[in-house]
């Protein structure tokens, strides 16, 4: 079982604890993405797997053995570094085959494996070039080829796409997944880019401040965020978060109130307490300039055009929220009515900031029908 198990792993530099008692199981053959902002400990975690960082406390298991004291070279891991770490004085060919040569692999096999990697990564014709004669994308592919040629069981990638242009990044993340689906190594991928995490990972482990915040499938991380941090981190623009007070079936937020569907009130009562964090993604909201019932009222402060969508920043009694809409974009200064899609809202416990969970079958509770009817009525009235 080429799995990786972190058992209460702690990593400190002097007094600075960067990974705080991490428990994490990475399954054989899965693509796990370590996601988080810079300084969250994700790279350190990856480097502990590679054996490039000592483990201060706890155990790291790989393939069933404790590997805390096993040196990098004996862990059977390949790694792609953020800066690619190509040897600048060696040609593409030599970079790719260097490890095999050091391991005294049979020259015929070296040649065969190198050729396979070179042609798979479309590096034909570049064999004799030095890294500095290559484009960013080519360097990235050489780094990948060097890691692949080793045919190791663990494949570690430290922000492998962060030095590429946007268009190339979209292309390369797809290629990475395809390569993994050919070899099925245990694949650990570090990134700070949530789109990369969503598209590459079977599971996403979101880290912040040395602590694992949540680990789940991309779909669940997006649709069912485990806590306020996860809700905020995933998605751009970020999820709107408001303090909410449950009072007689109403949610009081920023001095205004809305009446959520009964299923949600039930869920909140189950959780206990009357203070919550209310979360809603900008893309799951509607705003209108026409009067609407059961909506929050705000004033538009700023709009951003994304081409196909527009981001509308508005202000509800001093709290800034954002809504992303397609058409009927209100102008700065206009008064707007804001309704969340109740099938897509998130509620978090006020103290723990963890999700209170979700009621079953939310599909009939989105704003769709209710909103359109009421909107029309309101339109008539105004």
């Amino acid at each position, binding site marked *: 079982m080429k799995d990786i198990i972190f058992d209460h792993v702690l990593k400190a530099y002097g007094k600075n604890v960067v990974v705080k008692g991490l428990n994490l199981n990475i399954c054989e053959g899965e693509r796990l993405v370590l996601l988080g902002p810079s300084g969250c400990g994700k790279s350190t975690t990856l480097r502990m797997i590679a054996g*490039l960082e000592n483990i201060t406390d706890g155990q790291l298991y790989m393939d069933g053995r404790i590997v805390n004291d096993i*040196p990098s070279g004996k862990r059977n*891991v390949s*790694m792609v570094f*953020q800066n690619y770490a190509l*040897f*600048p*004085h060696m040609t593409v060919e030599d970079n790719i085959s260097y490890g095999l040569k050091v*391991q005294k692999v049979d020259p015929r096999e070296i040649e065969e494996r190198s050729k396979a990697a070179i042609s798979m990564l479309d590096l034909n014709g570049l064999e004799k070039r030095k890294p500095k004669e290559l484009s960013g994308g080519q360097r990235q592919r050489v780094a990948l080829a060097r890691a692949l040629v080793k045919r190791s069981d663990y494949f570690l990638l430290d922000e492998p796409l962060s030095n590429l242009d946007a268009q190339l990044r979209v292309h390369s993340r797809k290629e990475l997944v395809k390569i993994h689906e050919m070899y099925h190594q245990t694949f650990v991928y570090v990134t700070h880019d949530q789109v990369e995490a969503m598209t590459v990972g079977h599971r996403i482990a979101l880290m912040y401040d040395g602590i694992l915040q949540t680990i789940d499938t991309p779909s669940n991380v997006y649709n069912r965020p485990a806590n306020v941090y996860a809700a905020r981190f995933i998605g751009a623009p970020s999820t709107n978060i408001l303090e909410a007070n449950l009072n007689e079936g109403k949610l009081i937020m920023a001095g205004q109130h809305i009446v959520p569907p009964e299923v949600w009130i039930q869920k909140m009562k189950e959780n206990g307490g009357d203070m919550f964090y209310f979360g809603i993604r900008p893309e799951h909201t509607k705003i209108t300039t026409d009067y609407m019932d059961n909506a929050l009222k705000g004033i538009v402060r700023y709009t951003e055009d994304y081409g196909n969508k527009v981001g509308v920043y508005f202000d509800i009694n001093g709290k800034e929220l954002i809504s992303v809409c397609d058409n009927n974009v209100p102008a700065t200064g206009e008064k707007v009515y804001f309704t969340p899609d109740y099938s897509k809202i998130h509620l978090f416990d006020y103290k723990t900031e963890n999700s209170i969970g979700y009621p079953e079958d939310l599909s009939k509770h989105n704003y769709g029908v209710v909103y359109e009817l009421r909107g029309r009525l309101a339109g008539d009235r105004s």
Partner: protein
Amino acid sequence: MKTELNSMKWHILIIIIVCILIIPVVFAVSNSFKTLADAFSNMFNIIPANPTLENYIHVFEKLPFLQITINTFFIAAIVTGFKIITSLLAAYAFVYFHFRGKNLLYFVLISTMFIPFTVIMIPNYLTISCMGFRDNLWGVILPQLSDALGIFLLRQSMRTIPRSLIEAAYLENVSDFKIIKDIIIPLVKPALISTGIIFFINSWNEYVWPVLVLKSKENYTLSLALQMFISAEGGTEFTIAMAVSVMTMLIPLVLYIIFQKHIINTFTMSGIKG
């Protein structure tokens, strides 16, 4: 942006620096081809009125000059080689290893750069005397097998190598000596060459220490030979001294021409790129 250099003061500055560094060389070469009379009457003429080789001939008659040149080269080459090797290994240990007392040890090593050579000269002399290396080229060499300056310069250069390159090698289970050979040396080559040049020229120029150790003419080095012809007043052997000077310059110059390309790259490039 590189601005064009157009202000007078910068031009003057650079001209002065070049004069200080270059004129004496031209002077030495030119006077070595003059007769003594010519030299004294037209000392600052660059082109000798009656070019002559008699100074050079005289040197070869008076001294085993080839042997002396070989001695000097032998000492400089061995000293440079050893200093480079020990500096390289020590710098590697200081950059890539953890060990107890590392910072203290580095501090002590660097402190030795502040100790004038004259302080350790006599202890070294006594040590090599005990070992029976008096009047022997190895006596000159032995106390000069390592140098804190080299450790410092190579350590600085190694620190510019992205650590991930070394880590990539660790992941391939490459041994330390192979890392040094395959990765470190190619990447710090400019620093190795410049450090090597400093060591070589310093050894080539050395006078105080060889004069203490070496007694017989066949063991002399070039600076000792030169000293024979120097009298403070310029005296009758002045042009001969100039000839010895020029010959002293010969081997470094030949080496310079041979390694020209590398040396120019070394002193023009900066560090490691992409």
